[in-house]
């Protein structure tokens, strides 16, 4: 369906970019905007400190590693994740902003999963924290949907030919966590010992979990 341009609502954003009124240097730009919003009574600097502390110290990839280790050890938890990930994660206290609708995708010898957001940088914050720089980079967003194996090589990951790659482009508010394969030789390991093996990258799909030799 094509609309008639004369009668369509038009996007006005292209004509006016007020951000250029702020200082160009990014650190000064942020400082200026914080000062203006604080003077206007719209921002409490103490609230900013709490937000920063949350993402620097409380929410990060160890949450996701906990989920992975628990799923490896407890079949009933894995079943709960498959049936309704949001409910299972809520019980562990992992929910909230940028993790409202979670799906866990499982790696197998036949299928390796990789997550990206080509249009912005959507990422499961409650489980993995703030996305790494490369996840937000143009190179990752542009390349991983077209050449996932070349991207994996940048992470020193090489998959066997029998393993297909499935790339999840997070275009909606659904967030994906990769459940990596449990390495051989870890039978009977404690949850903490397994957690220590699980890297952030393995839960995005740019890493695999290995036992250090």
């Amino acid at each position: 369906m094509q609309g008639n341009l004369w009668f369509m609502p038009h996007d006005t954003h292209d004509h006016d970019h007020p951000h250029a009124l702020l200082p160009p240097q990014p650190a000064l730009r942020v400082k200026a905007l914080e000062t203006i919003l604080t003077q206007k009574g719209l921002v409490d600097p103490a609230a900013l400190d709490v937000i920063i502390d949350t993402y620097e110290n409380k929410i990060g990839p160890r949450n996701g590693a906990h989920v992975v280790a628990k799923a490896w050890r407890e079949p009933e938890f894995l079943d709960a994740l498959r049936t309704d990930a949001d409910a299972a994660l809520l019980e562990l206290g992992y929910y909230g902003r940028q993790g409202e609708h979670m799906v866990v995708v499982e790696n197998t010898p036949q299928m390796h999963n990789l997550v990206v957001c080509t249009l912005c940088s959507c990422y499961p914050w409650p489980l993995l924290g703030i996305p790494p720089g490369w996840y937000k980079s143009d190179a990752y967003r542009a390349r991983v949907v077209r050449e996932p194996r070349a991207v994996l090589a940048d992470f020193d990951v090489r998959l066997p030919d029998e393993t297909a790659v499935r790339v999840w482009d997070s275009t909606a508010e659904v967030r994906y966590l990769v459940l990596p394969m449990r390495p051989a030789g870890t039978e009977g390991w404690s949850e903490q010992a397994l957690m220590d093996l699980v890297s952030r990258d393995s839960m995005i799909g740019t890493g695999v979990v290995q036992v250090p030799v």
Partner: protein
Amino acid sequence: MSRVHDMGGRFGDGPIVPESEDVIFHADWHPRALALTLAAGSLGQWNIDVSRHARECLAPKDYAAFSYYEKWIAGVADMLVERGVVTPAELSGACDAQISDLATKKLTADQVAGVLARGGPADRDSAVAQAFQIGDAVMTRRIAQNVLVAGGHTRLPMYAAGAKGKILRYHGTHVLPDSNAHRLGEAPEPLYAVVFPASELWQHPEHPRDEVVLDLWQSYLEAV
């Protein structure tokens, strides 16, 4: 044509540089920019789709030159002016900033945990009936553009336009960004994960069994 953010499949970007989990922010102003963006968002003047679109509307040369958090701050500044919350004169420092009518909505330190925990769920009840079942063959819109607003927001990337795939999962009914980004209502409708063979999207796929999955709204899809 598309906007600059729609870069999936683009050639020429070079290698990806892995980094340690210990690196959370790369400059002192990054956490400040993040927190400022979240705090400004809690004033209730825009939704997530409006804010994504504000970043996408950056000039292509700015989008390419700005780092992640520079895009955020630019988007926030643009939206604050668009909503009349901040005047251009206040932004440029030409006059002193005046107390805002919205000051009663200021996010306080004790409210942060609750706001982050609540997040912003996008699932909504909808009168639109589910048209596709898991396994159904579908094709995406041939043109990856917003049908409601010229140059408007959409979540169908250009690389997946006019492509044939299969319904892999049904996510329930979710807010439609193409409408919500332009304050035309949430217009919730069925949302699906749709799987495409890499060979349907790329001239030279790396492997015959590789696939790409996208979350796509029902109105992006037709039966084939």
